[in-house]
């Protein structure tokens, strides 16, 4: 009984409660540390402190692991470790850009579609989502790559244009649920304009979904980037784990695995950490558990 009675009375918003819950989640915190570590690497690369020598030809062909070249060198003697580290930045850049924009676009369109559900606006937006979901992804990317004259951002645009539909459908469903709640009716009764209702009363209550969805999109973007780069549809100038794997696909049959392993291990670490972080976030933000 005493343990119960001494539970601290905390003054709390939903966010601080979620934060508290997250901070007590051990796997969540460990994964967060990993994610932050990767983020620091990406930042270091961006600022030119790390792996700036990724494209220099330094050693011999296919050198093994050594103190100088931790993961050996590739076919033309570039340092594999540097290239793998540099690719972290590429992954983060693609992941962040795609996750943020796709989630934001999905949120706005989903909210509008849900708020006006049953009207023609919703019909049109649903149609658009259905259309984008029905075009085979790789074809769509290829088409955009062609249409954008091989711009380095073609891949980003392609991913954003297809990934927003997932968030959008989720937000739409949630908004339809929220729209019927009495506090939204109360806002109508007070005379709050419709757009204000959507953006001040409804969307803020979907942020927990959006946050989790953004982390899921982030992972999806990283994974797609690797495959697209492998297929030759993604990163062109620069380095990415996908390009390293593409390079290695010739090498593995010859028994040289360093390129493949370096890219795989780093990528697995990041995706795994992010997946766990996303799960922990979801647990902490789950409204059924929070309220």
């Amino acid at each position, binding site marked *: 009984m005493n343990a119960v009675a001494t539970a601290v009375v905390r*003054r*709390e*918003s939903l966010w601080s409660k979620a934060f508290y819950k997250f901070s007590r989640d051990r796997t969540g915190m460990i994964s967060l540390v990993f994610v932050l570590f990767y983020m620091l690497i990406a930042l270091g690369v961006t600022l030119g402190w790390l792996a700036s020598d990724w494209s220099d030809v330094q050693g011999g062909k296919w050198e093994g692991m050594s103190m100088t070249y931790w993961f050996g060198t590739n076919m033309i003697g570039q340092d594999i470790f540097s290239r793998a580290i540099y690719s972290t930045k590429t992954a983060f850049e693609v992941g962040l850009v795609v996750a943020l924009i796709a989630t934001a676009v999905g949120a706005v369109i989903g909210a509008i579609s849900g708020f006006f559900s049953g009207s023609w606006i919703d019909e049109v937006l649903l149609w658009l989502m259905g259309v984008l979901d029905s075009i085979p992804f790789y074809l769509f990317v290829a088409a955009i790559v062609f249409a954008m004259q091989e711009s380095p951002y073609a891949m980003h645009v392609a991913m954003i244009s297809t990934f927003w539909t997932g968030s959008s459908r989720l937000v739409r469903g949630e908004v339809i649920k929220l729209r019927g709640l*009495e506090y939204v*009716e*109360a806002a109508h009764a*007070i*005379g709050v304009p419709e757009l204000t209702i959507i953006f001040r009363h409804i969307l*803020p209550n979907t942020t927990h979904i959006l946050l989790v969805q953004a982390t899921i999109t982030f992972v999806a973007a990283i994974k797609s980037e690797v495959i697209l780069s492998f297929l030759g549809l993604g990163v062109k100038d620069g380095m990415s784990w996908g390009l390293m794997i593409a390079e290695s696909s010739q090498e593995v049959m010859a028994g040289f695995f360093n390129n493949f392993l370096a890219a795989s291990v780093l990528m697995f670490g990041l995706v795994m950490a992010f997946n766990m972080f996303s799960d922990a976030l979801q647990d902490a933000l789950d409204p059924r558990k929070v309220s």
Partner: protein
Amino acid sequence: MSGQDNTALLEVRDLKKFFPVRGGLLQRVVTQVRAVDGVSFKIDKGHTLGLVGESGCGKSTLGRAILRLHEPTSGQILVDGQDIVGLQRSQLGVHRRRMQIIFQDPFASLSPRRTVAQIIREPLDVHGIGTSKERERRVIELLADVGMGAEIRDRYPHEFSGGQRQRIGIARALALDPEFIVADEPVSALDVSVQSQVLNLIAELKKKRGIAFLFISHDLAVIQHVSDEIGVMYLGQIVEHATVGDLYSEPKHPYTQALMSAIPVPDPTAKRARIVLEGDVPSPMNPPDGCLFHTRCPQTQDRCSTTVPAMVNVGSETNPHRVACHLQD
């Protein structure tokens, strides 16, 4: 009461709200749910009309239609003699300030991510009333009016119990100093020991501020305490309408009588003949012909299934008691 002129604060004339049901090959409207089917009444300044009926009788739809939260299908809603049906949303602004609503579910009626102060201030913000300082002061006054302290200003709704949330909801409704409030089942989600607290608060507001209420409830026992007149609804129509005194002492419509006798009485020694209705409420999608109640009425006659009974006044001119039943002819 003292009828200076004949314009009531609110008058509803033959109000209808139908919801279309679609079907068939081309998703055409095949039928309609007649949620509110021709309701008329008046509410004078400072008066309370209690509206009672079972779930699905259309009472909540009616309350929302009056505030134009649902667009009425037809009929008139006169506020001080001016019809507000058909007004553009932008023109509704003035009326929004005069009419407010209190909701049933204390957990769904407050936005979970906003603080108490933000919630109560919002009507003032929207209508641009007062300076920021004045609004802050007003929030504290309003909280005091509903029996809560200023210290809860920055807290979130989920930190409060159902009864306290309901008080916050009432404070929000009062922020614009409305003359008329629709109270939609405001106590039915609350525990018994808290229900009376909220009912007392509403009764006090009515007395002190002269606010008129449309008080919607499924419970005849709850509604008695706060109402001046009562309308009994069945399948989208008002079947009986009288002052509180008359209705409870002499219910005329068989449905009202059944409703009253169905309420469990907390007195084990009371032995009374209960009218237990047979069957279920018919679907508002295809209501029965004739009297809507004839399928369940214990006193039904032949003509009930064919002719619609007219609303007749069985009371006096000054103290009307209207009922729609063939037995009253």
